[in-house]
């Protein structure tokens, strides 16, 4: 699969504060890669470095397997931190500036304004927009020229629940067109619902990364029960299938080792003459895993 972005040991400090440390990750074509982390973890710095507005102290990154350049950046639609537009210009004129930079014809402007739900405000001045509308305009400018890659930093900032759902739908729609999307967010629900892959940042370091499903599955607890709960507990511990077993009322909460599934537990219990009265995979939210990781 085509590599869209590759970062090798990116490092950036602001004085004594290290914003990102030896950051390496690879994003392939069609990935919706979520960069997840608490405030100050280095998400925005990471995106600012890969969009060339901040120079890294060390390390290198490649877009489309080439050194970053203005020409390559035109193939990327980016929203970093906050929408940046001229307050005294209308929405249309602001997008015209972006269109000129990206060598996109003006006829694309109505399309993206429509997607962002701002068609009725085409000739309004930017400074008359609400925070949510400004964010929508930023989304519109990101989509201008139908770029191959979208880089979005907290795209749901300032949006009401309806707006959040709409932006989420826009991202999903774009992902369905096999676009590569890099999404930085602290809203775990957003990452969980939208992203195919996730990287978790803590103090500027990528502490975990992988497919969202794999990250979830590898840590999901399995709830099991049997008539003889004490024997079941002993057998499961002895089986070597589990990382941990915890008693939860008349149930056992089992964290399986990587590569094992609920059917393995069922088969093992059956082989030991134990009939399971309960076997349930409880999906822990990404939030609980995220909090555990960044603890």
């Amino acid at each position, binding site marked *: 699969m085509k590599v869209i972005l590759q970062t090798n040991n990116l490092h950036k400090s602001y004085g004594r504060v290290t914003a990102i440390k030896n950051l390496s990750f690879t994003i392939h074509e069609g990935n919706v890669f979520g960069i997840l982390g608490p405030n100050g973890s280095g998400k925005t710095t990471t995106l600012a470095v890969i969009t060339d*507005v901040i120079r890294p102290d060390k390390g290198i990154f490649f877009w489309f397997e080439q050194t970053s350049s203005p020409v390559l*950046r035109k193939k990327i639609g*980016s929203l970093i931190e906050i929408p940046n537009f*001229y307050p*005294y*210009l209308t929405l249309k004129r602001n997008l015209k500036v*972006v269109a000129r*930079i*990206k060598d996109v014809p003006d006829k694309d402007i109505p399309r993206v304004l429509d997607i962002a739900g701002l068609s009725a405000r085409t000739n309004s001045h930017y400074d008359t927009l609400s925070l949510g509308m400004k964010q929508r305009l930023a989304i519109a*400018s990101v989509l201008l020229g139908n770029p191959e890659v979208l880089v979005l930093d907290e795209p749901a900032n300032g949006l009401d629940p309806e707006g959040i759902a709409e932006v989420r739908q826009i991202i999903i729609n774009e992902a369905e067109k096999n676009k590569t999307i890099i999404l930085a967010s602290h809203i775990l629900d957003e990452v969980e619902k939208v992203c195919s892959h996730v990287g978790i940042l803590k103090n500027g370091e990528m502490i975990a990364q992988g497919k969202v499903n794999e990250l979830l599955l590898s840590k999901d607890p399995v709830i099991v029960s049997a008539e003889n709960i004490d024997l079941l507990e002993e057998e499961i511990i002895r089986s070597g299938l589990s990382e941990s077993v915890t008693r939860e009322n008349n149930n056992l909460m089992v964290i399986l080792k990587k590569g094992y599934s609920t059917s393995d537990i069922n088969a093992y219990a059956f082989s030991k003459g134990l009939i399971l009265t309960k076997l349930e995979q409880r999906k822990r939210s990404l939030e609980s895993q995220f909090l555990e990781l960044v603890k």
Partner: protein
Amino acid sequence: MKKLIEIEFIKIASYSVFRVLILLHFILFFLVVLVTSQLDITVPGFSTYNLYQFPNVWEFFPWVASWFNILLAIMIIVLTGNEYSYHTFRQQVINGLSRIQLLSGKGTLIVIIAIYSTLMVFLFSIIFGFIFTREYVFSVFYEKIYILLVYFLQAIAYMALGFFIAVLFKNTGLSITLFILFRFIIEPVIRLFFPKNFRLYFPVKVISNLTPMPEFLTIFAGKMNGDNQAIDTYSLREMGIMPEELPILVNIILAAGYTILFVFLAWLLLKRRNL
């Protein structure tokens, strides 16, 4: 280049501050030359009308316009400061402009504004020159017209200084204050600490000396004697009546050098600093 001009035009066309400043620049210049043309200060052998006649008008109008170059420099500071306060320089790099294109965009704008200002001075010089010149001789008409080109360079130099200060401080208010302080207080005070000969080489001095005050005394004395060369400016300077100046060609070369330096320093800042 066409793309950069279009981008800059979209930005300024709807910007009311820009329109007000340009209009103010135009109207103030017009009012000053109009009002002073109505002041009939006449002493035997000299009248202020002489300043409005060819070829003196080519010297007098650029000198008047040179004071309004400060307004043009402030305009560039406002436009550049906006790019930092709205984070639009940053966004334009994200969208696909290179840092050299950011510089070229503003550089092109500076040249366009300087062309406008020079054309304005040319237009008013022609109009007033034809109104006030009684005996029209073609060779006299274009005698000092080259000063317009010197004025053009001066306008660019002031705006380049403004641009550099704005890129250095990234803040409109602070940059305007420092530009005015540097122009009228800081550099003149620093100059005092240097020997007289060195003072002529300071940037603001060099740039402002491109269009020096018309030599009223020469014009006056020439008229008195019926000969423009009767008392030359050299002897007036020797007497301490006219300020010391470098030869015009040296001044032009130095001003061009300072302009290139300001642009180069602004480029270094844009290139090396985070946006």
